[in-house]
């Protein structure tokens, strides 16, 4: 094998794993709480989670109101960017880690099949997140 042959693919996925790890660590718990549990625990009212409330959330109304007239335009971007970061980061981080779980239980022989499938799912999910999130006004 030529000495010049450098593996540039593996470090890239480790980089995404690491970046996703930070995103998931800092952003995911608060999102799960607000998105899945807060209403059930009577922390937020129904108006915030029902259809209209969800649309207002993804439109960035609270952020726009808080940021004022100079930074208000950012408000509409924040929830969508937040969703893409969490979904994309979570998928690239989680599936990379899950890959090594599968290697550990003996699937390291199936590397050539497993890697494209797992990273393919992560990439497709991230694209879906971008398309869906930015399809809202």
């Amino acid at each position, binding site marked *: 094998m030529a000495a010049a042959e450098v593996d540039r693919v593996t470090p890239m996925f480790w980089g995404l794993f690491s970046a996703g790890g930070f995103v998931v660590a800092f952003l995911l718990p608060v999102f*799960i709480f607000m998105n899945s549990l807060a209403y059930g625990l009577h922390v937020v009212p129904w108006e915030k*989670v029902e259809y209209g409330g969800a649309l207002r959330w993804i439109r960035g109304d609270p952020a726009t109101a808080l940021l004022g007239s100079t930074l208000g335009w950012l408000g509409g971007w924040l929830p969508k960017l937040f969703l893409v970061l969490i979904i994309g980061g*979570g998928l690239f*981080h989680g599936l990379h880690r*899950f890959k090594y779980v599968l290697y550990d239980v003996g699937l390291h022989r199936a590397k050539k099949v497993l890697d494209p499938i797992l990273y393919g799912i992560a990439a497709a999910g991230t694209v879906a997140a971008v398309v869906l*999130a930015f*399809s809202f006004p």
Partner: protein
Amino acid sequence: MAVETVRKPYVRQRSAWWWTKNPRYVLFQFRELSSVFVVLYAFLVLWQLWALRGGSDAYYAFLVMWYSRPMMALNAVILAFAILHSVTWFALTAKVPLFRIKGRPPPAALVIGASLAIWVALSLLIVKLLYGGF
């Protein structure tokens, strides 16, 4: 193809439950398992966005499922694993010295403490900024 060899290496037998023998290994396996829940939640949110795009009837049907007791329980489990991920992630990033203080890597306790403080502050900021408070 690999070259055929005549040697017959000894492969030590290992139980599938080897990790239950030591609390450190249990924590390791649970941390690794958190990845499954993170991925699951990413897909649940994609499903939620899909339902939201489907209009008010589709989204109400989604919410009935979302706030049912089994789903609340599953989401609580996902949150527990997400918190386990956060705490273990801060603990492991503390082992990678990104900067030095007087030529020495910062003490792990300082890095973990700072990460936890940033985590809490950022979470509160998100509640305020994206959700307009409680």
